[in-house]
C-alpha cells in the first residue's frame, strides 16, 4: 500500500502574498498529499522545527519579496545541522533566473518561477521524494 506524501508548505520572510502558497497547498491535497501549512512570517528556525516534528518528505518554500538568497540557504543549512538529509526542499516565487544556480548549490532541489502549472510541481515531487512511499 502507498502512504501519502507529507509536504510542509511554508512562507519564510515577511511578505504576505500567499496566493501561490495556498493554491499549491490545495493542488497538492487534491493530488492525495498531506499538506501542513504554516502560515505567514515563518523564521527559518520555525520552518526547520516544523519539518522535523512533522517528519515531512518535502519542504515547499514560497517567497515573493526577494529575500530568497538569504532565507532559503539558511533553511537548508539548519536542516543539515540537524542531520536531516532525507527531505526534498523546493522553492517558488518571484526568483530571477540568475539566482537559481546559487540556490541549487545551497541544497534547494528545484525552483519554480511564476507561471509554473501546479501539475508540474506535483509531478516533480512524486518523482523526487527521497523516502519510499511504498510500505
Amino acid at each position, binding site marked *: 500500500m502507498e502512504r501519502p506524501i507529507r509536504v510542509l508548505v511554508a512562507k519564510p*520572510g*515577511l*511578505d*504576505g*502574498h*500567499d*496566493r501561490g502558497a*495556498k*493554491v499549491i*497547498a*490545495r*493542488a497538492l*491535497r487534491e493530488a492525495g498529499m498531506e499538506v501542513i*501549512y504554516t*502560515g*505567514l*512570517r515563518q*523564521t527559518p528556525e520555525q520552518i526547520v522545527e516544523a519539518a522535523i516534528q512533522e517528519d515531512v518528505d518535502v519542504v515547499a518554500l514560497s517567497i515573493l*519579496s*526577494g*529575500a530568497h*538568497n*538569504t*532565507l532559503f540557504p539558511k533553511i537548508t543549512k539548519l536542516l543539515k545541522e540537524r542531520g536531516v538529509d532525507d527531505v526534498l526542499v523546493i522553492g517558488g516565487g*518571484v526568483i*530571477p*533566473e*540568475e539566482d537559481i544556480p546559487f540556490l541549487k548549490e545551497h541544497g534547494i532541489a528545484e525552483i519554480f*518561477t*511564476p*507561471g509554473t*502549472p*501546479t*501539475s508540474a510541481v506535483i509531478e516533480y515531487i512524486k518523482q523526487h521524494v527521497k523516502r519510499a512511499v511504498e510500505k
Partner: protein
Amino acid sequence: MFYKQKLEEIKNKKEEWEVNQRQKVVSKFPERKKEFKTSSGIEIKEIYTPEDVGDIDYLEKIGFPGEYPYTRGVQPTMYRGKFWTMRQYAGYGTAEESNKRFKYLLSQGQTGLSVAFDLPTQIGYDSDHPMAEGEVGKVGVAVDSLYDMEILFDGIPLDKVSTSMTINAPAAILLAMYIAVAEKQGVSPDKLNGTIQNDILKEYVARGTYIFPTGPSMRLITNIFEYCSKYVPKWNTISISGYHIREAGATAVQEVAFTLANGIAYVEAAIKAGLDVDEFAPRLSFFFNAHNDLFEEVAKFRAARRMWAKIMKERFNAKDPRSMMMRFHTQTAGSTLTAQQPDNNIVRVTIQALAAVLGGTQSLHTNSRDEALALPTEDSVRIALRTQQIIAYESGVCETPDPLAGSYYVEKLTDEIEKRAFEYIKKIDELGGAVRAIDLGYIQKEIQESAYRYQKEIESEERIIVGLNKFQIEEQPPKNLLKVDTAVEVLQKEKIAKIKEMRNNASVKKALEALKKAAEGDDNLMPWILDAVREYATLGKITDVLRSVFGEYQQQIIL
C-alpha cells in the same frame, strides 16, 4: 432609455435576426466556446441591444459627470480639464537611493510621488530586528526613524507635491514622520497633500502586512481620521483597496464587493467613534485593480462609483456631495504579468491602463514589464510611464467623459456587477459586517476559491495566457534585472546606531512611556506618536510599545 414601442420593434427584429442570420451561421460554424463569460462568471450574450438597457433610468442610474450617482465620473469635465495623476509606485534600498529615483521621476513629468516601503517598515520592525533579516530595502525603502524620512524627501518641497504612501498597520507613524519632515521644511500640515493607504482590513484578507488585532487597528484608523480632519484637512486618510484583494485572486465582482464592505466598516467605526460622517468621508479614497477583461473592468469602475454614492447617501445619510464621490487610484494587475516573454507585458499593461482611464480613474500606476521577475529597472519604469502618456496625449479617449456610457453591453455589465456586489454586501452584513466576516475567514475563503478556479482554468487551457499556456517560445533568461544591494541592511543598521547616539535618549524614553499610557486609555494617539517621532524614536520601538498594549493579530486561515 428607449420608448416602449421602439423596444418592441427591436425585440421582434432581433428574434428574426437570431433565426435568419445567427442560427444559420452557428449551425455551420459553431462559436469558439460553448459559453462566453466575464472573469466574474457573468454570462456574455450573443448580442446586446437597446432591450438590455430598456429598464435603466438614465437620470437615476447614469446621470452626468460630477453629479450623483457619479456613474460617469466625479468631476464635470473629467480629463477635458486635466489628466489623471500619473503616479508610479517606487522606492527601494535606502532613503538616499529612493530620493534620487523620486527626483528622476519628477523630472520625467510624473506628477505625484508614491512611496513603497520595505516589509520590515510595513510590519513595524527596525532594520536591525532579527525578523528583518534579508528583507531590508527589498520591496521598498527602509525607514527606521525620522532621519530616513528627512533624507527621503530631501530637496522635494512637500507643499508642492502630493505623496502617496503605501503603509497600513504603522500608517500613523509614517504620517507623523511626514508631518514632522514638513515642519522642518517650514510647511504647515494644512498645506500637505497626499494619501496613506491605512487600510488594515484588506491586509488581513489579502496582503498580509498586519500587526495588531482588528479592534486596536480600527481605533488607530479612526484616530487618524479625526486628527487629519482637524490638522491635515487635504490629506486622504485612507485608500480603501480592492487592488490586493483582486491580486489575491478575487473576481471583479468580489473586488468591488469586499472593498465597499471594508469601506462600510471604516465609516461605521468612525461614526461609532463620534465623528460626523461629512467631517471625514470626503477624505476617503479608493484603490482598484485594472485587470485584463477590458469592458468588465470599465463596468466595474462605473458600478463601484454608483454603489458608493448610494451607500453614503442612503445608508449613512451623508449630506455633503464630496462624501458620496468615490475618488480612486488604479494600478494595473501585477498578477497578470508573465515571466515568459516579458515584453508582452507592455501590451497587457496598455489594455489595463486603458480600462482604468475609460473607467475614470483619478490616478494611475502602470506596472513595468519585468515585475514578474524582479523590481523594475529604470528603462522599464519609463516605458510604463510612457504608456500612460500615450493614452493621455495620443489615443483620444480622454476627450469626453465616460465615452463608453450608453454602450448596451457596458451599461448592462455595470448593472450586473452592481447587483452581484450588493448581494455579497448583504451577505457580509448578515454575518455582522466586514470585520466579523474577516474574523470568520469568510472573505478569505471566497477569494481563495476564485484564485484556485483561475489557476485550474489556466492549467486546463480553458483560459489562455499568451506566452504561458499558448504561443510559447524557447527563451534566454532575461538580463539586466535590478538587484538590491545587500549592503542596505548594513547601512540601515549603522544609521540606527548613529541616531541612537545623536538623539536625546531620555526624551525618547519619556515620549514612549507617554505613548504607552495613552494607548492604554482612550486618547487619540496621533499627538503622542508625533511626539515620539520628533524625538527620533524608531518605528520599531514605537510599534513595540503599541504591540505591548494591543497584542498581535492571529492569522485566520481556512483552506
